[in-house]
């Protein structure tokens, strides 16, 4: 029994070795199969890395301790509106963490400015956020990376890292046109890759009159005492008859912001990858049929010598999987090299403003790409393998 297995394995190894040794004779078709598969994997990983990048930007924005309060019925800050009175009541709710200055609640305004993109020179909706002192206190990841923080009460602005890279005229020392005024840029900031990096920040007290918002805001960001405090905080706000608001955990809010864009890109990317994969499978089938046909006599000879069907099938499969693996690794590597960290900005319909993000080729995507390549290799090798194994020995030997 045991010796039977060993003999069987030796057969597999022998045929496989023989197949691989003859590979150089079929360089052309093997290389074209490898590149076919590499192309599919590169495109698939590349497109999906856009979706991952957007998702990561949204997730980096969320802190488990934080919550956001919008007007009920509003799904985004853009649509929301909260008057000064509501903001005061929200800041007094239970569950909010406090520091020496009081409750860590940050009322904010969110509007858009039309500024030209660096890449195309065409105008885009750049988010402009009006904040109070607490905005920095509720965001742990916020830090100034060049220049300085704007002066409170002045029309100075600071610019997120992503916005600075994507839109022109936002370098420290330049000025942003807002209506008939010019607002000087005095610093740039980083927010751990979060959404805030796409934004321009200014004192809310300056933004309110400039955009005719009176004493109103659009959202309140709060830092909670603990992650468990959210339920109490939410209940306190929703039970208050003077308020008409919707509190959400930040994670939940940012997820909802990313969903549409993520699904659209992932859906399209998958569709494209599947269709391309079909094309690559036909290519792989062709290569393997050619490869098997070219060795028809050799394979028949082996079988005449007593090699069994399964080792022959396995060896052909192995060759095809090996080609697919090489193609998959090349494609995934190419995508990683070309796309990982590539910066871009697009319009997020959910907030009607630009989101700057970096393409993100995650290890999971690489694995997914290589798995897809192996799948192509499996299908591409299986049929030719079966054919090789089933062709009558006598016929194959007689063939030229």
């Amino acid at each position, binding site marked *: 029994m045991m010796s039977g297995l060993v003999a069987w394995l030796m057969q597999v190894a022998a045929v496989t070795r023989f197949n691989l040794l003859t590979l150089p004779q079929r360089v*052309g*078709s093997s290389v*074209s*199969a490898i*590149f*076919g598969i590499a*192309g*599919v994997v*590169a*495109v698939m990983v590349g*497109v999906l890395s856009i979706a991952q990048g957007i998702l990561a930007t949204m997730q980096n924005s969320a802190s488990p301790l934080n919550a956001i309060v919008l007007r009920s*019925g*509003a*799904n985004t800050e*853009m*649509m929301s509106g909260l008057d000064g009175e509501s903001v005061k009541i929200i800041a007094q709710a239970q569950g909010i963490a406090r520091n020496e200055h009081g409750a860590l609640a940050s009322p904010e305004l969110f*509007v*858009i*400015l*039309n500024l030209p*993109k660096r*890449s*195309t020179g*065409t*105008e*885009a*909706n750049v988010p402009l956020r009006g904040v109070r002192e607490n905005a920095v206190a509720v965001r742990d990841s916020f830090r100034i990376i060049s220049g300085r923080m704007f002066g409170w009460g002045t029309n100075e602005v600071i610019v997120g890292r992503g916005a600075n890279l994507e839109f022109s005229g936002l370098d420290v020392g330049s000025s942003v046109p*807002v*209506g*008939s005024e010019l607002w000087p840029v005095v610093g740039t900031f980083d927010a751990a890759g979060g959404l805030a990096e796409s934004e321009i920040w200014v004192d809310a007290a300056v933004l309110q009159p400039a*955009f*005719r918002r009176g004493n109103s805001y659009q959202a309140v960001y709060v830092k909670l005492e603990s992650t468990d405090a959210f339920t109490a905080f939410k209940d306190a706000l929703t039970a208050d008859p003077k308020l008409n608001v919707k509190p959400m955990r930040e994670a939940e809010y940012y997820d*909802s912001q990313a969903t*549409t864009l993520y699904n*659209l890109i992932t*859906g*399209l990317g998958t*569709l*494209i990858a599947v*269709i*391309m994969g*079909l*094309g*690559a499978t*036909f*290519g792989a*089938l*062709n290569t393997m*049929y*050619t490869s098997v046909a070219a060795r028809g006599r050799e394979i028949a000879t082996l079988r005449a010598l007593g090699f069994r069907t399964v080792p022959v099938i396995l060896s052909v499969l192995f060759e095809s999987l090996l080609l697919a693996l090489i193609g998959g690794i090349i494609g995934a590597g190419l995508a990683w090299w070309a796309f990982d960290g590539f910066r*871009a*900005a*697009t*319009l997020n*319909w959910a907030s*009607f403003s*630009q989101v700057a993000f970096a393409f993100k080729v995650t290890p999971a995507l690489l694995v997914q790409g290589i798995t897809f390549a192996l799948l192509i290799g499996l299908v591409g090798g299986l049929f030719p393998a079966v054919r090789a194994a089933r062709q009558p020995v006598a016929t194959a030997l007689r063939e030229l």
Partner: protein
Amino acid sequence: MKYFYLVWSNLKRRKLRSLLTVLSILVAFMLFGYLSAIRQGFNQGISVAGANRLVVRHKVSLIQLLPESYQARMERIPGVNSAVHATWFGGIYQKPSNFFAQMPVQPERYLDMYPEYVLPAEQRAAWLATRSGAIAGKVLAERFGWKIGDRIPINATIWFKKDGGATWEFDLVGIYTGVEKNTDTSGFFFRYDFFEETRAQGSGLVGWYTVRISDPARAAETAAAIDEEFANSPAETKTEPEGAFIQGFANQIGNIGQIMMSIVAAVFFTILLVAGNTMAYSVRERTNELAVLKAIGFSDRKVLGLVLGESMLLTCLGGGLGLVLAWLLISLGDPTRGSLPVFFFPVREMIIGVGLVLGMGLIAGILPALRAQRLHIADALRR
């Protein structure tokens, strides 16, 4: 043509290989067709924008509102024929993913401004007679299975009602169609007077204006005159041609077209490699036969033509079927189920597709064909 049988027989020799090559080319062209429809969907409107229409919005950004009184002032500016306004309602029908545009407009003026929206006369009359009346585009009505007479509740996110409610109910009195197949019929319009009397805040403010000008050649001057009229007012304007405005939106999404085209290029490169390799292989396999053909009197050029013809036949079969299949797939409908305002196979892209089929057949076949042409009979026969 008399050699067609010979070419065809060569393809039939290795049926499976020819079939697989045809199939992989088919996939490439199917993808090409499908992506061009998606790209068209993203860039919709640019090609259909009226040359005689300008869009006027708040200078700071589109979300800032403009006074309703600007309409009369604009219409007094020389070169302006008429001005209509629209406002972004941004409501939700049943659930947020059912996104579509809803806008309050002045019915008659709006339909006059956009002659590409076709509304039957009796439906137009019904709209004018019903304050809570609304009209929906054909694509939109089909998406949700709406029929005339339906009551459509939409939840406000920006515009709440005076009574504090968020649910606006509209009576669907008409379904408009497009003059051409690339007309966007995914919109939902209701009456501005109903909007104005019902909304809780923002009375007298509208989103943006569309202006028809008498002379498209003087568009830039007229745009400047409009912006001049409102300069130094609390709500300054920015006026641009409708095409530029829509193009601006398309650009905001990022260069979708470019991304799509680079994907198509990657696919083509891949398939070209596979097809080219197959051709090269089958020529090498037949070196002997080609030499025999030459020996019995086929000229070098004829042999070149035979091999090239074989390559062209393969790609035309695959590419042609792929384009037809893409067309069939596209007519099945939009993969995002309604997020793209239009979804069809543009004629221009079809022609480009046919050109690509021919080009690919040529490129894939040219090297093996040249090789066949240069074959020396004696050398080849000796192999």
